[in-house]
């Protein structure tokens, strides 16, 4: 921190203290407080949105790539038996379709997601630090203004021996007020504008999101359901009736009874 910056922060710390103890009057600006509160909500929501959209996207990717890996593992399992069995054929078809899904997904949805969701959100979220800087600056200048004003008042109430003091205090007060007003007015004018613009800004993203979600579901469903052709006719009903689970359990039991499993 520079020396000037240090002096400023010491002075401001003093002002805050005096304000807390009631020595210096604090400017209460309801208009700004309201706008800031709204802005804070917006900031928080947007940041949460950014986080969730990323999680959503990553989960989609994780889903398809996990399916791809599962398909690969299945091939290993089927490698144990002859590759032309019905199960192996279905497994193979499954692998093809999930691989297809995985590539379609990244090819078709990667760019749209980035353009319609991540970029607008990222851009908006990148503004916050700058806006917050403006707010911090405004708060600091407010302290300066409060302190200058109280100095001026004291001088007016209790005129000093030195006749140059009053004009100097007056000038300082005016300067502080000008700085503060400029920052404050800008924030009060533009925060509502920013907040208002959020609607047209994010509006197109909504439809894009819906379309991408629908596309993901549709592609997934269509590609996967094609695999059913390779299944025996009764599989679907067996699954519905819980037969498959029983089969799995039965085979596990048989395995446990093998002598090499200590079942003797």
């Amino acid at each position, binding site marked *: 921190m520079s020396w000037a910056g240090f002096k400023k922060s010491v002075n401001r710390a003093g002002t805050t203290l005096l304000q807390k103890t009631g020595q210096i009057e604090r400017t209460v600006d309801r208009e700004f407080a309201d706008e800031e*509160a*709204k802005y804070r909500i*917006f900031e928080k929501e*947007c940041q*949460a949105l950014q986080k*969730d*959209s990323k*999680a959503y996207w990553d989960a*989609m990717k*994780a*889903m398809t790539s*996990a*399916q791809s*890996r*599962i398909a690969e593992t*299945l091939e290993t*399992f089927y*490698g*144990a*038996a002859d590759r032309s069995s019905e*199960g192996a054929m*279905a497994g193979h078809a*499954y692998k093809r379709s999930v691989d297809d899904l995985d590539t379609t997904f990244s090819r078709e949805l990667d*760019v749209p997601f980035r353009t319609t969701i991540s970029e607008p959100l990222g851009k908006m979220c990148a*503004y916050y630090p700058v806006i917050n800087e*403006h707010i911090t600056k405004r708060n600091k200048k407010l302290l300066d203004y409060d302190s200058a004003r109280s100095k001026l008042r004291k001088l007016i109430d209790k005129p000093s021996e030195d006749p140059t003091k009053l004009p100097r205090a007056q000038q300082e007060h005016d300067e502080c007020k000008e700085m503060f007003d*400029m920052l404050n*007015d*800008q924030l009060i*004018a*533009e925060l509502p*504008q*920013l907040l208002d*613009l959020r609607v047209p*800004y*994010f*509006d*197109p993203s*909504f*439809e*894009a999101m*819906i379309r*991408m979600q*629908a*596309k993901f579901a*549709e592609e997934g469903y269509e590609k*996967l*359901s094609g695999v059913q052709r390779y*299944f025996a006719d009764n599989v679907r009903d*067996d699954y519905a009736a819980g*037969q*498959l*689970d029983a*089969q799995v359990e039965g*085979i*596990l039991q*048989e*395995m446990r009874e093998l002598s*090499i*499993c200590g079942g003797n």
Partner: protein
Amino acid sequence: MKGIGKALARTPFAVTSKIGMSKKSSDPEFDDYHRHFVSLEKAAEALIKDTKTYTDAVMTLFMSGANFAGHFAVIFQPIAGEYDLIGKHPDAAHTIRNITKYETALQEMKELITPEVELIETRILGPAKELQAVMKTIRKTITKREHKLTDYDRFNNSLTKLRDKKDKSLSDEKNLFKLEQDFEIATNEYEYINNALKQDFPRFMMLVTQFIDPLFDSFFYMQLNIYYLLLEKMNSFADECKYDISNTPGAQIVQDYESKRTDAWSLIENLGIVKRIISVSRLVQQSRAQGLGRQPSASTTASTSGLKAVTPPARSVSSASSYKGPPPPTSSLSQAAPPPPYSAGSSVGSATSAAAAKRAPPPPPPLKPKPKPTPQVKYVVALYDFAAQTDGDLSFNAGDRIELVEKTESAEDWWTGRLNGAQGVFPGNYVQET
């Protein structure tokens, strides 16, 4: 204790066989099965891991989907004290109306998915873990076989060595007899366990295939079901709320998005508060410079200050720095501006007030002079939306190119223009000359 003793007895052999000093026997048939078994072990582990990744991803997908919808809904609802978003943004009305439905739809989806994921956990992950447990016991048997094989080789080696020895001492003879006995026991034990493994392995491999068939089928249907659920919910939402979700290539989505993107982007970019502060004192100087530049326009400082882009003395602005001076607050603008005709400004129609809130356009000038014809054809570009307030006004949207029929000295005046075949008057400070 017995285990430690055995391990100690086996160590020397493990070392010597490693460095090639003693012979190690191998059984190709068993090795083949063993290789296969190892690959199955790995596969089972991978299956468990990936299934977990999959279920986690599904859970996250639906969780964050619902959260996303929730936060999006907050953004598209009035925040503390705001009102009538639809009136202000008629373009976004569709979104604003349906956002809550979307939120509910995704919330429902999230709840529907939980049982599906549980199903995968109990019906797929559970059995897969049990398979892994079975494999672990087999692995134990294999380790036992390794030990027995070590014993067998160990005794075998010692025996051969002792037999090959030329002059055997008395103790050697004794040892030989003992070794022969040990060797026989080791052989029997090894043979027994090796044969058991060789006999059971093919059976086990077959069972694994039989096991994976129904498991895969179930898993497949569960996955299909998840997609189906997602699809069905999305479809019913889209149906209800009139969204076109026919499957289009991703590029189409981008294109549609781009075409719907409004000037909100550039408007936000132009806000003063999104630009870094370099130095406050410099900003003050700039705003002073602008203030001075505006002084000549006398009492209307407040209203002209809103027209930064339109006011002529732009030289002082642009020369000062690239930083765009802060536009004055809307509130002070409406207070200080002279009462406009038709009581425009704040209380016209919702559309104009929306435009006013959105871009803080300057109030229309106070007087309407009579139009005078001018020969040359000139165009101006609209900076703000303008809706006709009476007959004879020319409505336009920001960005429209208007053919200028007649203009006056001052931008604070009503100019005449032609757009889309219609002719009418409009406030000169709403446009920019090209």
